[in-house]
């Protein structure tokens, strides 16, 4: 019997090897490599291919789900990736911990396409605009299915409505989950006040039985597939999800929300700095930013791309390009090691509650 099993195994291995052998084409770059670390579903893959063709650089592209996962990976070894796309507060943390390096803007001429106001906003986490170049920005809000929700959705409180038990998707990310609970209570999303955070913890624990699942990128597919009625989601998904399922609508609650910018940074340990600069420059190109925007539908800070959006509805869309002056928004700040630890411990309480 054992002899036979072995022959089976070997045969499987060989067949599989053959199958795969035909499928893979080696496209090793002649101009070296580039390790890119970006959010999941956050780029048009054609753009990567186009970059490889134009520059001869081989891109190794990995994806992360949350800023925290990204940080844990880089903290192990900052040379693991060359160019990364974290959010505002995490850029501040990376900068303060000396894990990213200043950019040489001379090598990134296309940076001129990025709207000046986005650099102004960036100053909250990158005071001298030395380390980061904006890639996408947006808000956090509620995506709901009009056929499954009868109430008016305009407040975070609906995520605590028992009517929707088992129909709610929460973000499986510390800061986003706490932002919802803190703002609902009228607190700042950057609070370090222990009793305010504890109140938010209690609310999140009270909400837990109503939550179907804590997910991140899956919110999109689950909402499209009508697995859930309400989900906390980033504004960039609104256009895409509405296109796939017209019953879905994105709302920014009246209590206010978080506004975020994800920006490109180059790691301290990067072994391919030049290629990383080329990558950022490429991403800032008007045509590329537009192509990317049309695919991922996250708001682009690229004025060149904004100008050339063909679809007038999207060009003037309040969802894709919200007027922030009409909303109560705030950006996350890095809360320091103690702040991070406090939130991490409290979040663990929520996640391990019954």
């Amino acid at each position, binding site marked *: 019997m*054992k*002899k036979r099993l*072995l*022959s*089976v195994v070997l045969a499987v291995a060989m067949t599989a090897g053959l199958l*795969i052998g035909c499928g893979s084409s080696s496209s090793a770059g002649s101009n070296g490599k580039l390790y890119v670390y970006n959010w999941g*579903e956050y780029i048009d893959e054609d753009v990567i291919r186009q970059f490889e063709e134009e520059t001869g650089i081989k891109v190794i592209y*990995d994806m992360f789900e949350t800023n925290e996962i990204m940080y844990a990976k880089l903290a192990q*070894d900052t040379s693991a990736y060359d160019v990364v796309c974290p959010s505002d507060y995490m850029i501040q943390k990376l900068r303060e911990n000396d894990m990213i390096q200043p950019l040489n803007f001379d090598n990134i001429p296309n940076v001129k396409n990025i709207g000046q106001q986005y650099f102004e906003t960036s100053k909250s986490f990158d005071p001298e605009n030395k380390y980061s170049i904006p890639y996408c920005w947006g808000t956090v809000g509620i995506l709901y299915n009009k056929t499954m929700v009868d109430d008016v959705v305009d407040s975070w409180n609906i995520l605590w409505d028992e009517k929707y038990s088992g129909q709610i998707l929460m973000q499986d990310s510390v800061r986003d989950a706490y932002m919802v609970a803190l703002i609902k209570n009228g607190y700042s999303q950057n609070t370090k006040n222990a009793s305010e955070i504890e109140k938010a913890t209690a609310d999140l624990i009270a909400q837990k039985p109503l939550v179907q699942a804590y997910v991140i990128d899956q919110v999109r597919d689950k909402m499209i597939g009508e697995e859930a009625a309400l989900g906390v989601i980033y504004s960039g998904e609104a256009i895409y999800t509405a296109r796939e399922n017209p019953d879905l609508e994105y709302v920014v609650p009246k209590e206010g929300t978080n506004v975020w910018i994800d920006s490109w940074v180059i790691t301290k340990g990067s072994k391919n700095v030049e290629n990383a600069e080329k990558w950022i420059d490429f991403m800032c190109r008007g045509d590329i930013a537009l192509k990317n925007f049309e695919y991922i539908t996250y708001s682009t800070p690229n004025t060149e791309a904004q100008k050339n959006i063909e679809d007038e509805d999207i060009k003037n869309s309040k969802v894709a390009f919200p007027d922030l002056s009409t909303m109560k928004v705030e950006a996350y700040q890095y809360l320091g090691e103690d702040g991070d630890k406090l939130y991490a411990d409290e979040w663990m309480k929520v996640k391990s509650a019954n």
Partner: protein
Amino acid sequence: MKKFFERLYLGILLVFMYAPIVTLIVLSFNSSKSRARWGGFTFKWYLQLFSDEAVASAMINTLSIAVLATIISTIIGTFTCIAMIGLSPKLRSLIMGVTNIPMINADIVTGISLMLLFRFLHISTGFNTILLAHITFNIPFVMLSVIPRIKNMNFYVYEAALDLGATPVYAFVKTLLPDLVPGIVSGALMAFTMSLDDFIITYFTKGSGFETLSTLIYNEVKRGIQPEIYALSAIIFVVVLVLLMVVYRSPSSKSKEK
């Protein structure tokens, strides 16, 4: 009557084991992305799968790590088992005690401990670190299946061969090794299976831009399951099953040979 219930029980368990897999295979032909709706028959997920370089390289990575780890761990494991014959029983049981650790220990602890080691030694994680990790957890499977064979080995034939003028190596290969082969084979087989199936240890010892099938699927699942993955599981399952059938249904002379 008893026979009937026995068959029924076997049947129910087989359905439990295989019905989910069959469902996946059916879904892999569903042109609708939704799992709840049948949108017609299609091969497009298979075509997409074959043009997907990420899956192809994950497959190659998985197989090459499994094959290399199996070969290396089988050699080291067997060699060590033979060497241990001459050691004092105390030392032998000490070695076996240590060898048992990765088998008994939780994968998550093994994975983390190796990650800490590689980090400490500043070895950048990737193919090499996964391979080292897999060899480490495979050696025990080899040793544990070779050792019982060594216990039953007949040394008199070996001694006789030496008396008749054979060199030790020749005598070993001719007299003792054949006894060991079944143990070595089943150990290698276990090692290969464990290596193919491993997720947790690989997850902690892999580096940037390097995926095996397990880690690739885990990432995909977190982003929402794409039907290509159904196609992938269908292929893996069918290949394993068909080969098994072929071996078992081959001319009965083969089964008598045993």
